[in-house]
């Protein structure tokens, strides 16, 4: 397994040991923990069985492999949910929400069923495999689903924490896994439903991110302070739906400068959430995005793509300085 800072591809098709699963495969680790506590938890795999190696070993009868058939997986999960089960579907993010948007809407969301879709390899994590394997529009789609909770954990520890927390929430959810991102948390952080974690209290500007964006915000905030004497509010915006409207509005009202950082298109994700919130509350603030352009994207290993598109701590720092010095 490699982190995106290394110039290698992530391999999710090989089994990992339990000792490393917690950090290398947090969603597989967490759902195994959840299944031990709740006999109604099932997993469905759209050809992503390695993520569930431990689950399969411990709970073979509660594992349903459905092959390379994501749309069927979502509707099958909806059927299982009507029987009182709590199905977790594991798929590659590019073939999750994007491919099954209509099944998620019609079968899961409209019927308020407790089906969770876990999308591994989100954003540009599958870089070298090509643009068909990118999931950079998924949040834009998922957050239009009225009854669906949309969660994008910052790292392995937060993925485990959020999966555990979401297990207590009755309803559909999309959990977007950022693959092998730098650790933000040493321990599982304590989230509240729909609330953002304030990681750092500054006041000069607001940095908000989800997934990879959180570690970039944390690193940039440190650089801003150490090298430029700028103090930033930093939020872990893991909850994208519902999101922490009050926290965002309060911070933006104070700083008047918001930088949204995400491994997602500039359209429809966190940047859009910020823009909508500023407009709704009539807050006069400057907004910048560190995100992927709404354009044909390049192909390469993730670390090089993130450099190319400015999803690095250095670029985030520069954008932050541009924002406040205007």
């Amino acid at each position, binding site marked *: 397994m490699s982190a995106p800072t290394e110039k290698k591809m992530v391999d999710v098709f090989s089994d990992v040991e339990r000792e490393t699963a917690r950090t290398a495969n947090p969603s597989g680790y967490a759902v195994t923990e959840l299944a031990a506590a709740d006999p109604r938890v099932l997993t469905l795999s759209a050809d992503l069985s390695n993520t569930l190696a431990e689950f399969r070993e411990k709970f073979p009868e509660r594992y349903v492999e459905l092959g390379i058939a994501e749309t*069927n997986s979502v*509707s099958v999960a909806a*059927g299982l949910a009507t029987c*009182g*089960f709590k199905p977790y579907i594991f798929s590659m993010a590019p073939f999750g929400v994007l491919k099954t948007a209509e099944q998620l809407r*019609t079968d899961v969301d409209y019927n308020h069923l407790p089906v969770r879709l876990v999308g591994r390899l989100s954003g540009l994590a599958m870089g070298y495999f090509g643009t068909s394997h990118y999931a950079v529009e998924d949040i834009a789609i998922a957050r239009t689903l009225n009854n669906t909770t949309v969660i994008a954990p910052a790292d392995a520890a937060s993925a485990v924490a959020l999966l555990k927390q979401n297990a207590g929430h009755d309803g559909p959810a999309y959990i977007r896994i950022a693959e092998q991102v730098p650790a933000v948390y040493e321990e599982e952080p304590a989230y509240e439903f729909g609330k953002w974690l304030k990681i750092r209290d500054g006041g000069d500007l607001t940095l908000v991110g989800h997934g990879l964006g959180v570690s970039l915000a944390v690193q940039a905030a440190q650089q801003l302070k150490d090298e430029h004497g700028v103090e930033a509010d930093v939020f872990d915006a893991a909850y994208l739906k519902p999101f922490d409207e009050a926290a965002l509005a309060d911070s933006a009202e104070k700083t008047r400068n918001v930088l949204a950082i995400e491994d997602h298109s500039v359209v429809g994700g966190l940047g859009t959430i910020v823009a909508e919130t500023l407009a709704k509350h009539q807050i006069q603030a400057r907004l910048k995005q560190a995100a992927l352009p709404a354009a044909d994207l390049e192909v390469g290993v993730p670390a090089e793509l993130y450099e190319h598109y400015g999803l690095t701590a250095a670029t985030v720092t520069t954008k932050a300085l541009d924002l406040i010095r205007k």
Partner: protein
Amino acid sequence: MGTLDSILERGRPVTDTELARRADWIRLQTVELIAQAGLGHYASTFSAAELLATLYYHVLRINPADAQWPDRDRFLLGKGHVATGLWPVLADLGFYPKEWLSQFGKVGSPVNDHPNMKLAPGIDFSSGSLGHNLSVGTGIALGGRLDNRDYRTFVLTGDGELQEGQVWEAAMAASHYKLGNLTVIIDANGFSGSGPTSDAMNIEPLADRFDAFGWRVTEFDGHDIAALKKALGDDLPDPSFGQPSCLIARTEKGHGVEMFSKQPQAWHLGLLEPDQQADVVAEITKRMELSR
């Protein structure tokens, strides 16, 4: 009365004549509801009338007083546009008050052109988007096996619906998991919304296709009550059987009214003029009186 006292068991005694009359009653009720709403799917509902009558008055184990009873047989209306024919049946059986039918098609009504499981008791799953419900039924059948319950899951699809790729993903999965507790009934009336089904995209030979996907297949006249009772009842293997069942009901779109069956396409979606409606009602009523 406890809720278990209202269970309607499988194989309830009913004569073929009674079921044929019940199918015609469904047709009459459909005509009335469509007139109330202002537009509706006559011909598709008419092809499925004997199927609905046989399922709800002979085959299904259901519990109107407790629509969510965990051991009930499930029925999923894949071809959701036929719900107009299902609403009077569910009201008649006591799933909800008959007065609900007067709300059909109105804003806020729990019963509409397509079924919504959140609004109407007796609807085991919502439908409307074609191709989903065989997958959902596969999940429900898997759930029954996991919970060690002996209910059956029936999914009614149209033949045009089989052009949806998801149906074949489900067909693969159901036979892979050897879901003998799952039955798909194909209302093979030969027409989809814009013309003969197989002119748009050939779906035949249906029996060979499902057989190749690992299903147990039978084929029969979908308006022949005796054949329906046999295929949906006595001939259906035990849920522990190692294959799901595919019942191909060969039907006529618009069956039971000459004007519809002669021009099934014209009456896929429409609204009868008052004089036409009088003729249609007279034709059905006359047949019902003759069978008395």
